[in-house]
């Protein structure tokens, strides 16, 4: 085939999660001799639309889109479809005529992490949630987490603060959390970036607070393997999301007519026992 | 001591100095005279290394020198007081005087005590007491001028350039300055003195060099010349009596009735009335409150109390724009800080507050009408410039002042407050401005003229309000408008205190 061109628009790329996605994409594309164009929207929907418009100018055949916001990118998806480009949403759903959506079971991820945390606390104690940027996957994790906590009578959710998924912001926020709740026993962070900040805060305070999270980032996995307050992260599989997503797209370019509308990717608990063997 | 030969200077295509020679000896005060824009300031900037000459040589003590910057000139023993202030508004007088030549302790820290003592000593020599702890921005214009002079004196320069230092001083203060200059002369310092006040020249100077349009005219001893000859050398023609005759009769109609102004709580309360077609002088020493009274009427100074009637109607102006709407305009005392928009051309500066005159379709500026009118206004006050589109900051100080005057004469407001209108204006142009002022009042407008130049106050005013300590202590008219009466009130007048 004469130079298949794959475009992928990321919501952000200064995050190992998306960086590893990009690496997987590059490997996969290389193996089939396709050209890759990657853009970074830096959390700006308007820029993401512009990025996609620019990629369409370059004549891409497949668009993998990791939307900053599901609703906001609709016009770009529509425009891509109008040019007969195969569109696959990765990690988060996009509105509009998307061909396939490949993403983690985020609600499960939040649920599993918080259930793990509650179990480790023997079903009782004060817990807090370190929230993040309000996009659907994050909101789903929080929802799953709250559902898990609700199953334990002894668990009380005493605080929810926003660490913006940023290590240094999370550090300050969690320090304050620890100050204001003398009996805090556990924290759930919506992602590993925030969790690493929370970990530093917990270690700095010298208190015994357990921490769980979602993602499976290398740093987090290492911290869990080392033992300490960080006891679990529910790992996603960013590389597999891209691989599966690309496969779906290729299937369509080869003429497949009944590709699945959505392919949920499983998540897995990573704790001290299996951390040593886990990597994205 | 200082010898300039064939100095030429061009700014781009414009040549402003055409080969000027100047020799200044140690122990003399050498006057540099010329009309506005003749090139005096430019020449002195060259002497002090701020500008580089296009051609010509500078010799100090017989040795040829080129100064890359002011520092290099200071090294060679040259100090200058600039025509435009060069003080740092938020630093105090001491910091300003020693800026860039601070005294240090052995640790390399500031030796604040030593600098303070030295500052006090130098200011003492000038015969002024100036608060040393407040930012110079809070000082009056004259006080700032003295800080400026003290700063140059602190350099211990052997060649001292004073570019119009007396423009902002009262006679008393000028005397102080002259005493110091005589002392310096005795010590062998060479002084270049620029002033548009010819009587000062005769009082203090030994020799005179005259420039006209950037060319050297002559150098002569003060003893060998007189005012008329000097003026002729400067302007190229004779100037007759500079003050136009005063009108015999001023109608009694009152256009502006300032019933009550109290600048500060517990300060004196003053009142005055301005008649149609009159020039009302405001005389007084520096800091006597003339400027503040004028600003207070227009709402630009927060006076404790201020009641003003315009054409019999009580007014309360919150900003100068309100005053302008009722026909009162103000030409401020500091052209650079308060008068000019430096980024504007001459044309734009003149039309700044007067677009109502060049309107098309109600909303839009009629550019052609604007150009025509401003060109006229420029001609009336004889602004020397390349054209109406020249940038303001390429004009000489006096020409900048003329632009602000042109703005207001062009505006034709009912009442004009002129604060030190002829500051920095040469003798020839002064006469023209005086004539224009009379012409203006003859058209039925009125002028309040704030001035620190007694001859000007006496020669121009129909009546004079004398200020002291923040209020009017006397209003004189007719035969009482003479220097003795005014100075007596200004120095000994008693202000009324209101509980």
């Amino acid at each position: 085939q004469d130079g298949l061109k794959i475009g992928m628009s990321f919501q952000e790329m200064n995050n190992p999660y998306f960086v590893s996605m990009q690496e997987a994409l590059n490997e996969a594309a290389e193996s089939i001799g396709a050209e890759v164009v990657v853009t970074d929207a830096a959390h700006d929907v308007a820029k993401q639309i512009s990025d996609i418009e620019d990629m369409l100018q370059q004549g891409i055949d497949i668009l993998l889109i990791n939307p900053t916001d599901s609703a906001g990118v609709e016009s770009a998806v529509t425009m891509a479809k109008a040019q007969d480009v195969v569109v696959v949403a990765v990690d988060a759903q996009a509105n509009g005529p998307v061909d396939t959506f490949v993403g983690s079971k985020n609600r499960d991820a939040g649920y599993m992490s918080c259930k793990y945390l509650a179990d480790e606390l023997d079903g009782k104690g004060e817990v807090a949630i370190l929230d993040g940027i309000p996009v659907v996957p994050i909101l789903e994790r929080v929802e799953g987490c709250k559902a898990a906590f609700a199953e334990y009578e002894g668990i009380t959710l005493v605080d929810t603060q926003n660490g913006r998924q940023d290590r240094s912001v999370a550090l300050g926020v969690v320090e304050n959390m620890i100050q204001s709740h003398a009996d805090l026993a556990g924290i759930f962070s919506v992602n590993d970036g925030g969790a690493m900040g929370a970990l530093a805060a917990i270690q700095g305070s010298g208190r015994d607070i357990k921490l769980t999270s979602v993602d499976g980032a290398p740093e987090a996995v290492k911290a869990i393997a080392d033992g300490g307050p960080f006891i679990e992260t529910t790992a996603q599989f960013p590389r597999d999301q891209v691989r599966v997503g690309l496969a779906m797209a290729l299937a369509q370019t080869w003429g497949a007519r009944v590709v699945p509308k959505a392919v949920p990717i499983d998540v897995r608990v990573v704790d001290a026992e299996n951390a040593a063997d886990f990597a994205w | 001591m200082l010898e300039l030969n064939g100095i030429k200077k061009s700014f781009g295509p414009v040549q402003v100095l055409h080969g000027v020679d100047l020799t200044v000896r140690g122990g003399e005060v050498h006057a540099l005279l010329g009309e506005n824009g003749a090139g005096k300031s430019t020449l002195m900037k060259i002497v002090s290394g701020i500008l580089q000459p296009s051609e010509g040589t500078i010799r100090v003590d017989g040795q040829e020198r080129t100064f890359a910057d002011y520092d290099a000139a200071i090294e060679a023993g040259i100090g200058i007081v600039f025509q435009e202030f060069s003080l740092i508004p938020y630093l105090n007088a001491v910091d300003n005087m020693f800026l860039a030549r601070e005294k240090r302790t052995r640790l390399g820290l500031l030796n604040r005590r030593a600098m303070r003592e030295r500052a006090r000593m130098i200011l003492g020599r000038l015969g002024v007491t100036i608060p040393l702890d407040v930012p110079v921005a809070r000082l009056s214009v004259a006080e700032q001028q003295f800080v400026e002079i003290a700063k140059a004196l602190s350099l211990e320069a052997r060649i001292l350039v004073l570019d119009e230092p007396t423009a902002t001083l009262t006679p008393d203060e000028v005397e102080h300055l002259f005493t110091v200059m005589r002392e310096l002369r005795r010590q062998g310092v060479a002084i270049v003195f620029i002033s548009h006040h010819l009587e000062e020249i005769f009082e203090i100077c030994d020799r005179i060099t005259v420039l006209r349009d950037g060319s050297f005219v002559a150098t002569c001893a003060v003893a060998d010349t007189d005012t008329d000859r000097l003026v002729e050398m400067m302007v190229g023609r004779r100037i007759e009596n500079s003050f136009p005759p005063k009108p015999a009769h001023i109608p009694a109609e009152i256009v502006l009735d300032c019933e009550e102004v109290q600048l500060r709580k517990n300060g004196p309360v003053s009142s005055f009335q301005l008649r149609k077609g009159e020039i009302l002088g405001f005389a007084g020493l520096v800091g006597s409150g003339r400027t503040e009274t004028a600003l207070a009427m227009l709402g630009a100074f927060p006076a404790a109390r201020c009641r003003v009637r315009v054409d019999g109607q009580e007014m309360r102006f919150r900003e100068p724009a309100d005053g302008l709407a009722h026909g009162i305009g103000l030409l401020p005392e500091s052209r650079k800080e308060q008068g000019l928009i430096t980024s504007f051309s001459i044309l734009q500066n003149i039309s700044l507050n007067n677009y109502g005159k060049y309107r098309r379709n109600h909303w839009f500026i009629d550019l052609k009408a604007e150009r025509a009118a401003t060109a006229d206004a420029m001609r009336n006050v004889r602004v020397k410039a390349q054209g109406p589109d020249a940038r303001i900051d390429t004009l000489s100080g006096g020409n900048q002042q003329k632009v602000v005057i042109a703005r207001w004469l062009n505006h034709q407001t009912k009442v004009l407050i002129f604060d030190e209108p002829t500051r920095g204006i040469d003798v020839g142009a002064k006469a023209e401005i005086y004539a224009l002022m009379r012409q203006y009042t003859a058209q039925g407008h009125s002028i309040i003229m704030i001035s620190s130049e007694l001859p000007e106050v006496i020669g121009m005013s129909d009546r004079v309000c004398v200020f002291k300590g923040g209020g009017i202590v006397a209003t004189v008219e007719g035969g009482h408008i003479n220097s003795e009466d005014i100075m007596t009130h200004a120095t000994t007048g008693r202000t009324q205190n209101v509980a």
Partner: protein
Amino acid sequence: MSHDATVERRFDARRLLHSPLALPLIGLIVVSVLMGFASDNFFSVSNIFNVLRQVSIVAILAVGMTFVILTGGIDLSVGAVMALAGTIAAGLMVNFGMPGWVGLLAGLGVGVVLGVFNGFLVAWGRMPAIIVTLATMGIARGLGLIYSGGYPISGIPSWISWFGVGRIGIVPVPVIAMVIVYALAWVLLQRTAFGRHVYAIGGNELAAKLSGVKTQRVKLAVYAISGVTAAIAALILTGRLMSGQPNAGVGFELDAIAAVVLGGTAIAGGRGLILGTLIGAILLGILNNGLNLMGINPYMQDVIKGLIILLAIYIGREWR
């Protein structure tokens, strides 16, 4: 004779070169040509309209920013005000079922109110613009997030998309809107007393005030104008995103400032031309588009963009 003619010609060339627009234009041409070499698609009509459409939002924000900067101020709140205006407009349509035009008017109202708020505090409150608008930025962002609960608001009437993706003939609607806004701004600045007063305040505020310019009103007006252009930008953004996005426009204020300064306007106020801003905005847009088209690593794009801006301003400093 021939000698004279040469002199005259040279003089004219200098005049042209010394126009404040010369440099931004040269920059634009140079960058365009470079991009044209680097990418085949660059000079296609469809890509040119693509670039202009992308530019339109920042370019419109930059109009208000030009007014503000000309008076010597700055408006850091434009991105946040745009986001809030869009969010409120979408919220009224979606959550309160109001007709689209009511929502749009409300968005405009948000822009005006916040602009007046800024202007009032700067002019009558005599507070530094940078800090007032920084605070307004925080407030507007917070309000947008509170109002929307952090969720984008989608489900607005589909005709709104016309403002973002529609065309008249082959010209995208946002591009037409941009041209109209610039034309109006040009008239205001160059042909009205208000415009002269804007420049005068930037040149010497005290002198302008003492000369009878109503400086406070003019300052209020420029911030209000900035609010209005932010609301117009919000309209286009909402049309493009088909939703109200409380997080949209983060950092757009910096792009708008960059466009103004690249366009030759002095950051200290008093000097500059609105057309320069347009050129500056297009220059920035071309850089973004071109670097994307060339497939440059996004991290590298930041570096290259920064260097090119520095280079442009460096060369341009003689003209200021």
